[in-house]
């Protein structure tokens, strides 16, 4: 008898599922879907990931050897080469590791460009963490509490933003430089060397834009009913601020990060060009700086390699940043 009985519970469950609305997607998974479904932003994401992987790989000891290994031992200055001139007069490519040529000390441009991505990403990530951290905390506190705290923070960022950013970064780098490289500074300041100069001078100056953005957003969110409702439920200020208001602003932080990263990569080049920041490792800026005199003699490959590396990363980050903004900020889609 039991075998004959129709399985009604199963049928009901099936019908219920058929009628059920589409399962909920969180903002993060929704944004992820949007990025995955766009070929261009997916390509950019892959490029950025590759840069990161290369940056990670450069932690291997083999990198440290390769970047300083001259093709021919000996003279402190060597003619930069792209081809090898054999005795019979024929031109040949250098060994695979030197396909991008050598620079004035005979070291492989290829390895040095790869190593440059490590420095660029280290600077980007650390400086972003620093500036996003400062900007977010000051911005939300300023927007939420108002009063004299707001006055103080607004005054601070207005003062900083009244100086042109690049000049400020350069001034900052000059101020820090001596303490990180010249040996008079605290030991842990010297640990990261010139990289630390760049990180500090970027991180301590670039929080202004995010701070202003966050302040405005929090000012808006703070008067939303869900904040009043949370207050009426008995939640404290800090909990409301960091558990209810901050998650509503994550899109701003991510977008600021992805667009800010581009400028960090570029400013590192500017600093290196001015002889600030990284002096002992092959950053892209250092490479361009090294090659600027050779360029007049027709040695184009070192500048080109570093520039292309910067160009591709910046383009990928820019497009990805735009895609992230479209995906994460529903207001830009015209749907609130």
């Amino acid at each position, binding site marked *: 008898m039991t075998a004959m009985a129709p399985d009604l519970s199963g049928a009901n469950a099936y019908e219920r599922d058929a009628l059920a609305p589409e399962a*909920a997607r969180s*903002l993060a998974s929704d944004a992820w879907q949007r990025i995955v479904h766009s070929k261009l932003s997916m390509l950019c994401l892959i490029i950025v990931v590759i840069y990161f992987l290369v940056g990670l790989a450069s932690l291997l000891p083999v990198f440290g050897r390769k970047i300083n290994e001259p093709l021919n031992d000996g003279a402190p200055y060597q003619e930069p080469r792209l081809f090898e001139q054999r005795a019979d007069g024929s031109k040949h490519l250098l060994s695979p590791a030197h396909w991008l040529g050598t620079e004035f000390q005979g070291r492989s441009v290829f390895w040095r460009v790869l190593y440059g991505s490590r420095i660029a990403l280290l600077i980007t990530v650390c400086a972003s963490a620093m500036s996003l951290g400062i900007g977010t905390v000051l911005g939300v506190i300023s927007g939420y509490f108002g009063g004299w705290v707001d006055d103080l923070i607004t005054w601070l960022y207005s003062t900083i933003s009244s100086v042109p950013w690049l000049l400020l970064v350069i001034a900052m780098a000059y101020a820090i430089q001596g303490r990180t490289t010249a040996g008079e500074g605290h030991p842990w300041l010297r640990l990261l060397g010139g990289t630390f100069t760049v990180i500090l001078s970027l991180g301590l100056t670039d929080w202004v834009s995010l701070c202003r953005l966050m302040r405005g957003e929090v000012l808006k969110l703070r008067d939303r009913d869900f904040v009043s*409702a949370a207050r*009426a439920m*008995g*939640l404290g200020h800090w909990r409301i601020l960091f558990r209810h208001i901050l*998650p509503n602003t994550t899109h701003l932080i991510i977008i600021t990060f992805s667009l800010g990263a581009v400028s960090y990569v570029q400013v590192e080049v500017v600093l290196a060009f001015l002889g600030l920041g990284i002096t002992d490792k092959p950053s892209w800026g250092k490479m361009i700086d090294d090659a600027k005199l050779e360029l007049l003699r027709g040695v184009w490959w070192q500048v080109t390699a570093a520039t292309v590396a910067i160009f591709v990363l910046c383009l990928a980050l820019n497009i990805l940043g735009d895609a992230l903004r479209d995906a994460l900020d529903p207001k830009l889609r015209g749907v609130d």
Partner: protein
Amino acid sequence: MTPLLELKNLSVAFDTERGAIVPVRDVSLSIFPGQTVALVGESGCGKSVTALSILRLIPQPPGRIAGGEVLLEGRDLLTRSEREMRSVRGKDIAMIFQEPMTSLNPVYTIGDQIVEAVMLHQRVGSREAYKIAEQSLNDVGIADPHRRIHEYPHQMSGGMRQRVMIAMALSCQPKLLIADEPTTALDVTIQAQILELLRKLQRERGMSILLITHDLGVVAENADVVGIMYASRIVEFAKVEDLFDRPQHPYTEGLFRSVPRLGAYAQRLVTIPGMVPAPTRFPSGCKFHPRCPRTRKAAEALAADSAQAGAATVAVTDSSGETFRVLQKCATVEPDLREVQKHHWGACHLIEGFDKATATTPRLEHRREVVAATVQGDSLPETAIPAKAESEVGR
């Protein structure tokens, strides 16, 4: 029977650059267990500020509680620390808001939000809290709570979200629910459902409700006791039947007259002339006198009667530019809220039979009286206005 919540001469001030404005002045009322008290008034009359200051949620500064007491079960909320207030909010007194579309945090599922409230006030683990949340969603009539608890606010309609808000507010079994225009943003059929739900939950739990609204229909259906607010003060306070049968204050009369009646023939809807004054420009004396038909009529009658009418009346220009005369007393002396009939309080100089009394004793002490309300057979909730004390706010 002691009231659950008593407001005694509550005054709230906001300090602005042009001096303090007082959106709530001398508001006194009592809410007994199981009772629904409605506060009715136009936008800007101070009813929402009253509700917010019970929970001390007005922004401070610029806001401040300028005087009075808020007694929850006999203990003053105004003297408590912020930490103690946080344990009152949500646990003893919960609040729901007008706009369900924005009252829920869009980045969390509704389950997370209810669980957060539950875990804040009850010593339960997250598994237990989810069970409580699911149960409270079930209680407010959300079908399939097991699934819906994982949904985001944007997946729900306005009526559903208001149900979720109610579920969240009631998940900690509060003794008092403050409902600040809970149905204003909803369409009429949903309004009826939500109010029916509130009534049902109130019956089941013996909870009190402070209902803030401007909808007289909602008041008639739901409230036991009604306070009419006008320009920062309660101008009339009575049981709902008394108020609807025998409104005493000219403003209340005007409100009732401006409600369209089914089946009644009228060319135009009657309105109250003029506008609600802004809190920055409250008129002197009775705040209703520039719009009050009663004092106008009295002034006209006086002018027809005697030659010295000029001394007893003053000219007033209303917002439409029309000039007329009102009684001087109405324009200069603010009437106190006094018991004009048994269990029926009104604040007007010209309530019949009280002209002489007010002429001799301008500030009557309010007696503390308890009225049987008529909701539930023999276990009667009660109504009272607390004894009047001097306010710190100057007149």
